């Protein structure tokens, strides 16, 4: 009843707007690059661009996983801890003589297991996502520190350590990993029925259930994907820094959430994409990178990042309200 008049007012279809918003973000990213290119000599050097792509890559992968969870109206606070824990896991496995590929497989499986545990807590124990992932955030760091006895495990495998420094077709291999994750993610979220189910569960769990959607399985899927992406990032990080250390990636969960939100994901669920968080992650990476190049106090980086989150999300919401 109360909304009947808006029906006739023909709200603007949503899809065109999503693309537009994506383009705005892309425009912002290019604008930042242009600005930094003009104000510094070192920005447009291949070294720096490679560095930027490497920096952004890991947050980008985390953000994509995080987005799946946020679309279901959940949150995954543990991803930073999972990254640290996975770096320990793979380093420990390699140090104990497990060959590289099985070690990678096992580490990813650990990620799957952690995600399944989160979903178990939410679905079976009825815990809020915020709580269960907050709990594993601190516990995983603790377990990692126990395994390493508070120190680090160094990785001696040369080929593994070289991977993150290598380029392929002139592009850092770490950035290729973003593409390796993003393309299946895109197909999954936008072209498969499971993607639709994520949106439906995030919009109205009960309606989804009564429409035959297996809500529990969908939640398992979302958290497993998020943790597996985090475990994958843990492997990449271990390769990059050459050690396993449980205290690494402190605060990355917030970076991932910020990237996702900048990319247009709604924390209330049912709104989100794959390209959004990717752009969000590289915008954040660019700000960090640019601040370094400009010799800006690192404290300012944090302030700028915060301000940017407020501005972008504010305009995104204005747009949404306008399109209703």
């Amino acid at each position, binding site marked *: 009843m*109360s909304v*009947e008049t808006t*029906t006739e007012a023909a709200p603007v279809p949503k899809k065109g707007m999503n693309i537009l918003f994506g383009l705005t973000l892309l425009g912002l990213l290019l604008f930042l690059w242009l600005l930094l290119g003009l104000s510094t000599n070192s920005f447009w050097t291949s070294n720096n661009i490679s560095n930027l792509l490497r920096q952004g890559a890991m947050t980008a992968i985390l953000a994509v996983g995080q987005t799946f969870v946020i679309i279901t109206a959940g949150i995954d606070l543990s991803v930073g801890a999972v990254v640290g824990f996975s770096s320990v896991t793979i380093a420990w496995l390699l140090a104990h003589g497990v060959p590289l590929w099985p070690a990678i497989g096992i580490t990813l499986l650990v990620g799957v297991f952690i995600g399944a545990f989160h979903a178990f807590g939410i679905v079976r124990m009825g815990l809020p996502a915020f709580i269960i992932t907050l709990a594993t955030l601190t516990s995983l760091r603790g377990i990692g520190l126990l395994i390493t006895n508070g120190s680090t495990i160094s990785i001696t495998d040369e080929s593994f350590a070289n991977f993150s420094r290598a380029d392929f077709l002139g592009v850092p291999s770490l950035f290729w990993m973003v593409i390796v994750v993003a393309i299946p993610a895109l197909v999954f979220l936008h072209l498969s029925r499971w993607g639709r*189910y994520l949106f439906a569960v995030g*919009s109205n769990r009960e309606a989804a259930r009564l429409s*035959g959607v297996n809500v529990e399985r969908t939640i398992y899927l979302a958290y497993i994907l998020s943790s597996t992406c985090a475990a994958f990032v843990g492997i990449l990080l271990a390769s990059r820094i050459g050690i396993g250390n449980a205290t690494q990636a402190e605060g990355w969960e917030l970076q991932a959430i910020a990237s996702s939100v900048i990319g247009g994901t709604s924390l209330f669920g049912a709104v989100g994409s794959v390209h959004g968080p990717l752009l969000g992650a590289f915008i954040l990476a660019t700000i960090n990178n640019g601040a370094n190049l400009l010799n800006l106090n690192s404290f300012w980086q944090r302030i700028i990042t915060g301000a940017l989150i407020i501005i972008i999300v504010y305009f995104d919401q204005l747009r949404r309200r306008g399109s209703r």
Partner: protein
Amino acid sequence: MTGLNDVSHRHDAEVEALSGGPVAKGAPILELRGLHKRYGTVEALRPASITFLSGEIHAIVGENGAGKSTLIKLLTGVIRRTSGDIVWCGQPVPLSDPNEAISRGINAVHQEVVLCPHLTVAANMFLGDEMNRRGLMRKRAMTDAAQAVLNDLGFNLPAGALLSDLTIGQQQLVATARAAMRGTQFLIFDEPTAYLTRQESAQLFRLIRRLQAQGVTIVYISHRMEEVFELADRVSVLRDGTHVGTRLIGETNDAELISMMINRSIEQIYHKETLPIGKPIVETRGLSGPGFQDISLTVRAGEIVGLYGLIGAGRSEFALGLYGREKVTAGEILFEGKTVDIRNERVAMDLGIALAPESRRDQGLCLNLPIGLNINLPVFDRLSSGLTINRKREIANADKQIGDLKIKTPTRRVLASAMSGGNQQKIVIGKWLSHGAKLFIFDEPTVGVDVGTKAEIYRLFSKLLEEGAGIILISSYLPEVYELADTLHVFRQGRLVASHAYRTASHEDVLTQAIGV
């Protein structure tokens, strides 16, 4: 009366200052002169001139999209008019924001209660207008004052209870009491009884009459004709954004009002065809679960089985049990003669059971997702080939339902939340038509749905029956189940207490059985 006056007296001065003095009973209190609202090119309300007389109950009827909501929003200052005048107590007023409307004494009680569920009844009644002493709230005083008002109004409600512990009907009464307390002179009710039981409705009507006796002017918006005739002094009809006319209640009848609203006669609304009844589709034997006990009934092909009862009588719970949403604790279900174990919703769907649930908002729709996604939700597995969804079939399926059901939307990409009640119900129905089923369960399919859409839904029932389906129709609106059901079962407190063949019992008997006097 004391309670009410005690609390509201401090508003009186304010209200009078703004309203330009009291208006004699029966004199115009609010006049609309050529009131006009346009959204872009859409005429939501064509220039309308309606006069509301002080102290009357003025009903407004019309289909969804007729402009009733627009009118309420204009009167409560939620939206601004395109042109025309609103004359309040003899003076033209801007009514440009909700606070102005409230301070002039114009208030609305909405169909869906907009209060804070986690606060107490008293806190809600005083919300935004708390009693303070040196910056601290006087909680005890407020609770006592609220209780006095509630007692005075004849509500048996504790002022200290949490709002969320009350039924929707009781919450509606609290919302009304809240408006009554604030020195309201002009109170608009927007379909207040949509979710109320009979007793709650009766209580609300008593309250409305009481407010009228105190000189409050009431605007009452409803889809239910008998309520209009029970309460109103005059009635105005809107159709397609046009004010069609205003009648004294004694000089009109429901046939005339309905024809003014839709240009259709009343017989055409409850469309029923007599069809040969076929084989049993579903049979329950002594089915029990949370909220229902020992239910045995049969639904055959070509048959509408009506479940009537008060809200909370266990009909929806039974439907959810049959659909696998709630655990069945005893009894058995036979589907087409075979015993089945419906463990979850998917099993029910695969057997051929469809459920259009009671609440569109909470159970039926993903409101912030597109119409197309909502329609396709039950059938995405069929629309997929391999890993991905076949986009062409996805689009075609959604567009087909939108076209077949005449859902009023420019495209399938519009969000479900932007649709009116009737169109939202069509989306829910579209979901199940595209999925297909042998047994359709419709739980309160016409709540908040306009007369025209109602008629469309009933015709759709006939179509489903012709195709060999069976229907369970749950409704708290007796004329609906009474006129449509081939077999009418009456539920009371979780049990099936009586069954009647088509039109074999009187309305009074059925009601008595449902209430259980």
